[in-house]
């Protein structure tokens, strides 16, 4: 008898919580860390924020690959600052995930064990200096297209992290574009280097928006929860429309024979994306999957004694307040 009453009361409380949550999301209010939220909402956010954070820190590698070879001191300073920002952005995002009750340690362990993903784009290699420019223009451009709507995400800490990140990232895309422009207008060798980089990065950049709407596992629910605001295909189209005139201004071509303006749709049509490649890279068969994860694990393992030392020092000197 008592048990039944308790169950009923709990069910009622649950229903009230759910109603309050749904109403807040519908009213465009933000959900904050200590608010009640559906377990699936929390899990979905942790998954997405973790993947985003992992992408920032794995994404340092392809660009850091060129810090020591940057061709001028100005470019070197820009690149160092950019890679540093990525570490910072990873940090903001792990912090956002911590507000959901998931520690950075836990997320890093999952990354290192291959149990959480990061953006597949970073499994492609940076073969020439022009790749740094192409990443800035295309990869950061695609990322920004994805991220700007996230500044209005229903979860407050994630939205706030994204506001900071978008503000800081505005220089990332511009420096990439400027760098590619210098190459395109430079010597014939430099121009060829820029074209080659764009040829290699264009399609993987389009894949960054994720699978087509019909095949996207998490999209519909994320849209309903206002974690996500636009569908993968919508954002991809927006990105293509932005890039075509930018490529023309660069004096470079995009490697898609089917790319043409569609008057009726008011958008550029583009050719089919090779989703086999996408799934293949996602499953671990990209050119750099192993290399990226190995390097990450190695940095983490080699840093263990340093982290332990600082914790031990704090404990000795009475400052640890875990």
């Amino acid at each position, binding site marked *: 008898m008592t048990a039944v009453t308790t169950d009923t009361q709990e069910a009622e409380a649950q229903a009230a919580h759910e109603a309050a949550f749904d109403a807040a999301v519908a009213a465009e209010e933000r959900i904050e860390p200590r608010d009640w939220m559906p377990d699936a909402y929390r899990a979905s956010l942790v998954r997405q924020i973790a993947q985003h954070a992992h992408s920032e*820190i794995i994404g*340092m*590698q392809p660009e*850091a690959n060129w*810090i*020591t*070879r*940057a*061709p*001028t*001191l*100005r*470019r*070197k*300073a820009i690149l*160092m*600052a950019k*890679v*540093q920002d990525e*570490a*910072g952005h*990873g*940090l903001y995002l*792990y912090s956002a995930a911590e507000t959901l009750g998931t520690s950075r340690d836990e997320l890093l362990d999952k990354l290192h064990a291959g149990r959480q993903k990061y953006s597949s784009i970073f499994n492609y290699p940076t073969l020439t*200096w022009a790749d740094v420019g192409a990443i800035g223009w295309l990869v950061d451009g695609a990322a920004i297209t994805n991220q700007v709507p996230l500044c209005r995400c229903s979860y407050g800490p994630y939205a706030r992290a994204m506001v900071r990140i978008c503000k800081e990232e505005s220089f990332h895309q511009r420096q990439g574009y400027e*760098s590619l422009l*210098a*190459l395109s207008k*430079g*010597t014939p*060798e*430099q121009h060829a280097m820029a074209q080659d980089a764009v040829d290699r990065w264009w399609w993987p950049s389009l894949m960054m928006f994720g699978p087509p709407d019909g095949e996207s596992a998490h999209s519909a629910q994320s849209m309903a929860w206002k974690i996500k605001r636009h569908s993968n295909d919508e954002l991809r189209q927006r990105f293509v429309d932005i890039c075509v005139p930018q490529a023309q201004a660069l004096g470079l071509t995009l490697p898609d024979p089917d790319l043409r303006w569609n008057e009726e749709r008011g958008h550029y049509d583009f050719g089919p994306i090779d989703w086999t490649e996408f799934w293949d890279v996602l499953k671990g068969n990209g050119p750099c999957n192993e290399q990226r994860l190995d*390097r990450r694990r*190695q*940095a983490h393992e*080699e*840093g*263990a*004694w*340093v*982290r*332990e*030392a*600082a914790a*031990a*020092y704090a404990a*000795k000197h009475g400052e640890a307040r875990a």
Partner: protein
Amino acid sequence: MTTAPTTHAAALALGDDALVLSHRLGEWAGNAPVLEEEVALANIALDLLGQARVLLSLVGDEDELAYLREERSFRNLQLVEQPNGDFAHTLARQLYFSTYQRLLYRELATGDTPLTGLAAKAVKEVAYHQDHAEHWTLRLGDGTPESHRRMQQACEALWRYTGEMFQPLDGLDIDWPQLEADWLTSVTGVLERATLTVPEGPRTGAWAAGAGRQGLHTEPFGRMLAEMQHLHRSHPGATW
């Protein structure tokens, strides 16, 4: 008329120090022990690169100087070109160099030479670098037995490159023996607080006192330059 030419050699030497150390710190990108430290090391590297660009520009074109000189024309200390090693080696190098740079720039900031403006700005940056190195030296020295062992080893390994810092630089009005005494007091104090033993070995290599300042470098430096200069040199006259 101006004092510029007499400080060229000093600007080049100090500019090379900053350039080379910045490069070494840049090699940490993506490899730091914790994300917070990624950001810290990059800040230091960027400060140093900024200093290098100002100093080299006092002498000539920054990129020509950085990318087109041969190894024997570089005037940086051997200390700053030493490979990163583990985090302890990097931090021991930071402690030794930032203490030197702070003491030296504090003097230069009060003078009236073409270096004064840069020194006045840089001394604040460098004070932070020293603070960073000091805090880490304490934590590594007085942390775990492993960190203590590693830090002690690093301090000893780099000790022999610290004498070179006090070779007088032409054109600078500095009391070098005093600078050296202050440096020893400061570094000794930090090492002792960190429960580390102050190394006893010689502070210069047997064959190469003042080596880096005379253009004699260690083997790893050639490889570092090869990597740094390769792209720039592969496209003569190109703009980037």
